[in-house]
Structures are given as structure tokens and as C-alpha cells.
């Protein structure tokens, strides 16, 4: 909308005071936009300068003696520390400077350690290097109040958990990842409290969700089947997180949790809808005490307990009938697992029925809300279920063909009906 303020004043639509307020409002908004750009360029600049210095020193000048090379390894770290120290003493409020300097310091900590390793030809252990780097960089987030350093930290600890837990075939599990993650949470909560609609919060949500989903699997060792409960409970936590007062304010911000929770739960359910998993479980059914005292039980208990607390909170404020079925999937699965773990055929029937129910209920919610996206999501769930069943059932091509035609017509009719009713409403 284009507003010509002088014209509006002339025509007596608004007073001079209102016109001043409007122009002040827009100039403040513009200033915020410029500040954001400064932060982006500050961080990008710091990243490039840091990496540039690192590359120059990493050239490994053979003309220099070992001692001089070792001293040079400290240069980026010292420069970054002096810059950050100066900003702290000056008590600079410039977000761009703080973010930029903190990013530079973050990179420099890792750079100086890897440069020393290179100078002395030490191959080293990537997971130990990442662990030391992240531990030394954690205080930078809080001291410099830097969101970008916090994002880099989340990426770093995730790389550490992957390297130690998946890639390097290490014998020790990266338990320290969870401690490192917990240590970063207070900053995240502070950020959410301070600015719950900012982009930094969105990026944090995304990285925290991805980091936890990726790293949870590192706990698995021998009793992999228990991890399905842990993952379903984790996704239930994402779906129920709006029960925490801090997260109630912004629906838009919780979208990443919502998407991760819903799609994660559905993917796990689809994996469990195949007979392979249950047949394997029936053959290798472990003794109960072995499962109870396994290390996979720790994440199972923790995630399920948190999900139950959040569910309880939700039930206290809302009627049970208003809670979406997807939020209860973790509980239903635990029941199926405990009751029918040794009866594959029954368990498969229950899981498939559950998916069908979720698909139908999503369609109903979509119709009630008059939301075309939710409606199609429900139809998509049913379609994927049918496609999955094509793999492990011996239905004739004729029947498969009719099923597909049926679902296709369903898609068309449902969408047509909704669009038509919308048109009529208009």
C-alpha cells in the first residue's frame, strides 16, 4: 500500500500528528532493516577474514622455523580475543560488531588448535578436536551474547556426535554431546524470551531439532528396537512443546517443531508398518531384564517422561478429545510394542490401522478447518500407506490398479468439494 501523507493531510483524512507518527514508525522499521544487514555482513566479513588468515598461515611456510610457525598459530586467536575484549570494555551495543567478533573468535579457537597439530604433523582424532574446540568456544556465546556463535556451536556439537557416534566407529559413545547441548540451552531460552519472532530464533529451532534428531541415534548399540520408542516420544515432545509457557506466544515460531514432530512420527510409523521389523523382533526377542537395564533405556525413559509431562499439561488445559491423535502416537506404540511384540501379525495390523486412523482424522480436521493443505496431508498419508502395502502384500495388479484409481478419485473429489464450498461461501 502506497501512502501519500501530504495528500492525506491536505484532504483532512489524517492530522499532522498522525502523519508524523506514521513516518516515524516507518523510519524506525527501515533502521531495523539496515541493522539486520549490518549484522549479516558483519558475520560474513568475520567468517571470511577468519578463514582467509587461517588459509594464509596454513600455507605452512617452509622458510619459517618451527618456533615461528608455532607462534604464528596464536595470531588469529590473539587478534580475535583483543577485538572481543575491546568490545566488552567499551560496552559496545552494536550487534553487528559483537556477532562479527564472536564469530571470528569462534573460528580462531579451532584454527589455532588445528594449526599447531599441522605444524607438528599430528593427525589426531577429529572427535576429540571438535570436543575441545566446542568446549572452549561455549563461553564465547554467553560472554559476547552472540547468536551466530551459538548456531556455529550447535553445528559443531552435532558434527562431534556424528563423528564419535556414527562415522569413526568409535567404541566410546558421545555422551558428552548431551552435556554440551544442555549447556547451550539457557542461551536459547534467553533468546526466545528476548526476541521470539526473530530469525535467529527460527534458525535455533531448526538446528536444535535437527541436532537432537541426528544425535539421538548415537545412543543405540545392541537393542536398536527400543530407539523407535525414544524417537516417537521425542517427536511427541516437539508436537506438545507449545504446552511450555515460553513457547505459547508464537505459533509461527513453533512451526519447525510441528513439522518435525508430525513428519518424524509418520516416518517412524511407516517404517514400523512393514513386517520385516516385527518378524525380526519376534525372533530376537530379548529378555525383559536385558532391555530394562540396556543403555537405550535411558533415552526411552527420559523422552517418554518428558512427553508424558507435556501431555498431562495439555490435558489439564484442554479436553482430551481436542488433542490431536498424532500427539498420542508414542503412547499407543508403547502399548502395541509391550502387548504384541512377540506377535508380529497382530502388531502389523494395529500399526496399519493406526496410520489409516491418523490419515482419516487428518482429513476430518482439514474439512473442519476448511484447510486444503491439511486435507491433502491426510490423503497423502493414506496414499503412502497403500504404496507401502504394495511392497509386502501380494495383491493382483488389477486390485492395485483399482485402489490407485480409488485414491486418485478421492483426492479429486475432496479437493473439488472444499474448493466449491469455499466459492459458495465467498
Amino acid at each position: 500500500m502506497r501512502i501519500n501523507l501530504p495528500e492525506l493531510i491536505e484532504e483532512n483524512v489524517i492530522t499532522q500528528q498522525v502523519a508524523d507518527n506514521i513516518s516515524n514508525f516507518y523510519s524506525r522499521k527501515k533502521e531495523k532493516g539496515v541493522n539486520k544487514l549490518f549484522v549479516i555482513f558483519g558475520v560474513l566479513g568475520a567468517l571470511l577474514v577468519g578463514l582467509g588468515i587461517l588459509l594464509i598461515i596454513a600455507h605452512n611456510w617452509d622458510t619459517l622455523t618451527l618456533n615461528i610457525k608455532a607462534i604464528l598459530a596464536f595470531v588469529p586467536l590473539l587478534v580475535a580475543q583483543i577485538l572481543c575484549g575491546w568490545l566488552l570494555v567499551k560496552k559496545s551495543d552494536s550487534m553487528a560488531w559483537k556477532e562479527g567478533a564472536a564469530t571470528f573468535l569462534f573460528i580462531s579457537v579451532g584454527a589455532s588448535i588445528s594449526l599447531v597439530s599441522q605444524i607438528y604433523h599430528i593427525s589426531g582424532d577429529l572427535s576429540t578436536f571438535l570436543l575441545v574446540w566446542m568446549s572452549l568456544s561455549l563461553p564465547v556465546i554467553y560472554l559476547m551474547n552472540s547468536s551466530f556463535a551459538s548456531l556455529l556451536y550447535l553445528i559443531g556439537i552435532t558434527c562431534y556426535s556424528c563423528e564419535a557416534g556414527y562415522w569413526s566407529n568409535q567404541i566410546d559413545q558421545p555422551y558428552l554431546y548431551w552435556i554440551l547441548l544442555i549447556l547451550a540451552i539457557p542461551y536459547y531460552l534467553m533468546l526466545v524470551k528476548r526476541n521470539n519472532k526473530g530469525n535467529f530464533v527460527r534458525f535455533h529451532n531448526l538446528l536444535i531439532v535437527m541436532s537432537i534428531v541426528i544425535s539421538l541415534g548415537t545412543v543405540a548399540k545392541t537393542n536398536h528396537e527400543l530407539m523407535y520408542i525414544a524417537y516417537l516420544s521425542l517427536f511427541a515432545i516437539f508436537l506438545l512443546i507449545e504446552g511450555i509457557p515460553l513457547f505459547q506466544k508464537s505459533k509461527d515460531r513453533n512451526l519447525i517443531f510441528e513439522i518435525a514432530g508430525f513428519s518424524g512420527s509418520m516416518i517412524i510409523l511407516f517404517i514400523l508398518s512393514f513386517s520385516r521389523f516385527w518378524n525380526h523382533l519376534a525372533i530376537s526377542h530379548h529378555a525383559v531384564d536385558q532391555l530394562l537395564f540396556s543403555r537405550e533405556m535411558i533415552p526411552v525413559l527420559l523422552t517418554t517422561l518428558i512427553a508424558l509431562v507435556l501431555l498431562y499439561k495439555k490435558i489439564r488445559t484442554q479436553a482430551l478429545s481436542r488433542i490431536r491423535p498424532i500427539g498420542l502416537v508414542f503412547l499407543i506404540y508403547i502399548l502395541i510394542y509391550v502387548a504384541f511384540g512377540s506377535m508380529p501379525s497382530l502388531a502389523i495390523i494395529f500399526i496399519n490401522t493406526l496410520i489409516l486412523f491418523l490419515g482419516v482424522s487428518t482429513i476430518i480436521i482439514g474439512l473442519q478447518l476448511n484447510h486444503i493443505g491439511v486435507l491433502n496431508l491426510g490423503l497423502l498419508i493414506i496414499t503412502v500407506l497403500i504404496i507401502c502395502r504394495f511392497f509386502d502384500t501380494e495383491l493382483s495388479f488389477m486390485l492395485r490398479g483399482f485402489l490407485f484409481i480409488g485414491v486418485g478419485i478421492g483426492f479429486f473429489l475432496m479437493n473439488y468439494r472444499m474448493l466449491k464450498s469455499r466459492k459458495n461461501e465467498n
Partner: protein
Amino acid sequence: MRTKTILIVVFIIVSLVQLAVPANMIYKYQHILTFGKEFKFKIAPVDPSDPFRGKFVRLRMEADNVRVDSLNDWQSKEVIYLKIETRSDGFARVFDFSREKPQSGGDFIKARVDYVTNGTVVIEYPFDKYYMEESKAPEAEKLFFKASRDTANASFVTVNVIDGEAVLKDLIIKGKSIKDIQ
């Protein structure tokens, strides 16, 4: 004002810890290079398709495997201690290895099991890369290829060892340090 002072004091402490980590590494490696016992490890011919990655030479020691009675006991990536001695030809040899750090005298190196195959445990040495100036890499690469085919003139690395920790000192090709290649 008080918060600012506390913040600055904490920042100084954090900065000192950040500096202490690389400083401690330098002290440790310099100590090993100065006071450690020197060993020569013969280098095995390298895989011609992949000897150089950027600006370091990937090294494979000739003595990189040890025969064992039971393969099941050893897991990939687990930490092992290699007991080493110098043979009559002047080169180092691994004569035993264990999970526990050797308590009695004798020299040893902390390493990892790379993988286990055909009755042997293949060792992952802590010194398997030699970093060098990137401009010298192509010339060094040619020389390294030639030397790895020449059995009369063995290529080797010199390594200093103290209490299980090893630091690579030099890479010698045809009796000449790779640093002197122009």
C-alpha cells in the same frame, strides 16, 4: 559497573584457557622432539592413486600389521600400545602390543587398531600424515613415487617418542629430508 568487571574478568580467564590449550600442545610436542628417543620407521609403497591430499603426504608404515592368534579380541579403532625396538638394520619394529599401557621399561607408542583381517591386526599410527608447503607438493610427489619403487634406497620417517606419545620429525627420501627438496 560491577557486572561489567565480572564479565571482563571471566572473559580474561576464558581467553587464558583458550590460549593455554594450543600452548600446552606446543610445549608437549616440543618436549618430545627435544628429549624423546628417536626411531626410524620404514615407509611402505603408497597407493599411487591417492598419495597426496592437498598439502600433506599420506604415510603408511611398513611395520603396520601384527599377527594375532584370536581376531575376535580386537576391535577397529580401539586404543592399543605398541611395544617397539630398533632392529639391527637401524629401523623400528613392533614386537608386541597390548590394551594396557606397558608399566615396565621399554619403548612404546599409543596407537589405534585400523582394522582386523586374515589373522593380522592392522595398526593406525598416530603419525600418518606429513604436512608440507603446498607449492612443494608436486615435486615431492614425483620424488616420493620414484623412491617408493626403489627398494635399495629405503624411505623412512624419523619419530621421537616419550611415554607412548610420538611426534613425527622428518620424512627422508633417498637419504634426503623432504624439507630440502626445492
